[in-house]
Structures are given as structure tokens and as C-alpha cells.
């Protein structure tokens, strides 16, 4: 699905990850690593949000920075909340893509948020805000989904629910999860580890 060809990543010309060759296929891939090891950098790069310093990133064989390809959906570690209702927050991606907004309600129901759909999302606790952020991504049911530390901020009761949901629904798609938490290993098909700017 995703292929990295001798990719160096970093900011302001200073690389954090060097000369990576990597292939990520269907199923759930876990990217592990210490804080600051470059997990987020890698995730953003393969989601089309951070052009590599050198090398090419291909999705289904096509360069996501040079060709018109449907890009992976990337969900930040930090909750990104619009100052609108919970419903509008979850539906944002669907709106942009011009897809049916019904799916926002469906995914909210699965996670038991149907009663707070009309509440302003900025009043929610950080835990709920994180959940809403993730549901915005799940609502569009992307072919490739990239979750950056999805369990951070999240309340305990939703962690389990989220992992189960991901395991049931993303086996046939491509899901990349960046995290330093061991508990995700149990749903992962593949586990990568970033150590000293290299991927093992």
C-alpha cells in the first residue's frame, strides 16, 4: 500500500530520519519508539502533510507529493476541535469529501455519543475531545488511516472500545498507529520500531 524509497525526513533541512526504505501493507501496523524518536514525523510524512527532504513516498505506486492520489487520513495526538457542535466536528471530514453525513451519526452511536451530538465540542473534556477527533477520521472510513498516539488523553473505557473497533474494521484496510504503548501490540499485525533514526 505504502512504500518509502530512501526517504529522509526532518525540519528545516535537518534530518531526523535518514534513508528509510519501508513497505507497509494491509492490516494494522504499529510504529513504536521513544518520545521524539520521529514517530509523528514519519506519520505526517506518509500522510502527505510533510514533504520528505529526499526520497519518494508512494501510495499504491504513486508519489503522494507529486501526483494526485487520495491521501491517508491523519489524526493528531493532540485533539483538534472546531468550535462547533460534536456532530459538526465528527461530520467535518464527510462534509469536505461530500459524503453522506449519516455516517457521523452512526459512528457516534457506536461510541455512545448520540446524546451529546448537539453540544459545543469545545466544552468537552480532553478525553472526549480526543475521541471526537478520532471519530472524525473513522467517520470517513478511509482506505488508509494514520492514528498518532490514539490512546493518549482518551478515557480508559474508550481505549478498549477503540481498539476493538479498529481490530474489527481495519483488518482489510490499512491502519498505521504510532504509539509508545505496549497494549496496542495485541491488535497489531506488524510492529515497527524507530531507534536512532532507523526503522527496525
Amino acid at each position, binding site marked *: 500500500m505504502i512504500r518509502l524509497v530512501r526517504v529522509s525526513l526532518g525540519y528545516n533541512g535537518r534530518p531526523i530520519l535518514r534513508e528509510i526504505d519501508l513497505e507497509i501493507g494491509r492490516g494494522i501496523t504499529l510504529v513504536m519508539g521513544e518520545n521524539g524518536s520521529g514517530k509523528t514525523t514519519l506519520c505526517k510524512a506518509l500522510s502527505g502533510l510533510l514533504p520528505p527532504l529526499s526520497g519518494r513516498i508512494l501510495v499504491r505506486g504513486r508519489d503522494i507529493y507529486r501526483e494526485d492520489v487520495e*491521501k491517508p487520513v491523519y489524526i*493528531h495526538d493532540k485533539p*483538534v476541535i472546531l468550535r462547533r457542535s460534536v456532530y459538526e466536528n465528527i461530520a467535518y471530514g464527510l462534509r469536505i*469529501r461530500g459524503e453522506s453525513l449519516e455516517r457521523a451519526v452512526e459512528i457516534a452511536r457506536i461510541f455512545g455519543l448520540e446524546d451529546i451530538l448537539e453540544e459545543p465540542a469545545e466544552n468537552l473534556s480532553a478525553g472526549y475531545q480526543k475521541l471526537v477527533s478520532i471519530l472524525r477520521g473513522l467517520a470517513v472510513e478511509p482506505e488508509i488511516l494514520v492514528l498518532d498516539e490514539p490512546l493518549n488523553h482518551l478515557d480508559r473505557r474508550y481505549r478498549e472500545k477503540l481498539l476493538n473497533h479498529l481490530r474489527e474494521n481495519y483488518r482489510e484496510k490499512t491502519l498505521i498507529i504510532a504509539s509508545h504503548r505496549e497494549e496496542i501490540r495485541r491488535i497489531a499485525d506488524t510492529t515497527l520500531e524507530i531507534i536512532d533514526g532507523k526503522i527496525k
Partner: protein
Amino acid sequence: MSLPGEIVEITFRSLYVSLSAALLASTWSIPATIYAVYRGGRLSRGYISIMNTLMGFPTVLIGLLLYLLLSRSGPLGILRLLYTPEAMIIGQAVLVTPLISSMIYEVVSKERGELIEMAKTFGAGGREVVELLVEENREGIIGSIVIGFQRAVGELGIALMLGGNIAGYTRVFTTAIALEIHRGRFDLAISLGLILLLIDLVLVAIIRLLGWRR
């Protein structure tokens, strides 16, 4: 000038001219500035540092340049805009453009990173990102427009040079105050100043209320 009727008239004219100016300036300041935030890069930084620099440009000089432009023998003289309320609106809009742009930049650039990436990851284009940033920073943007209005309503140089302080036509607070000072009627000048202050206050209060209700 002493009749209450004339003061009321000046009040409405001042509000009208400066509000139009602030809104007119917003019609280009908002998209231009937010697009600059969205694009980032050297060009955008250049744009915003120009705006920051122009903020301190003396109003009488803007007034003079526009006067030369709009004067009957100037390049735009054929429009016959000099000494009209429209000329004042245009002049004040030019005056507050750097201020409004810089303020909006301050407000919006705080949200640059994540919000833009979030929109982009779902496939939002430039236009959609700009729309999102406008909606998400509504209070800040309205606040910037209000500050632009306050700057416009309180400036003298442009109102005088482009409006001409014509009684019943282009006389606004500041030009009326200047004239009354010239006439030695300081008490009247101060009353006008107080009304201006009061309007600022009421306006800010209204905007706050609107902002909170949403």
C-alpha cells in the same frame, strides 16, 4: 455647530463612514491574510512584515497620496470622488488595512499547524482551509474589524484631506472637533470627544455580547 440635530447627524455619518471603511478593508484583508497564514513560507512572511511596517504610516501622508490620486487633475480625478463620503471610506479603508491584516494574522497564526493539517488530511483545498480558519476565529476577526473601525473613526488626516469637512456632507467627529478647537469652543470639542468614546464603548459591548451568544 451647536444644534443637537447636527451632532446626531455627525454621529451617524462618522459611524457610517468608518464602519464601511473597516468592513471594506476586511473584504480583502481577511482572505489575503488567512491565505498567507495557510501558505506560510517566505512570501507570506514578507506580506505580513509589510503590513506590520505600514501600520505606522502617517495618516496625513495616506491622505495626501490619495488626495493627489483623487484630485480633479489626478489620475482618478474623472471619478469626482474628492470631498465625498466615499473618498473618506476609501481612504480610511486603506488606512486600516495593515492594522486589520496584522491583527487577523496574530489571531489566526496561533492555530496554523494542527487545524490546517486536519483540514488538509480530509482533502480540503486552499479555499476550504481559509473558510475554516475564518469560521474558527470568528471573534478574533470581528474584534480586529472593530479595532480597525476605532482607528478609522478616530483619525483626522484622511477625513480632512479627502472629505474636506463639508458641513452636512463630510463632517465627522474628528474634523468637527478640529474645527471647534479652531473656534475656541473647547467644551463642544470635548463633548464630541465624549460621544465618540461612548460610541466606542457601546460598540465593543455589543460585539462582545454577540460573540458570547453565538
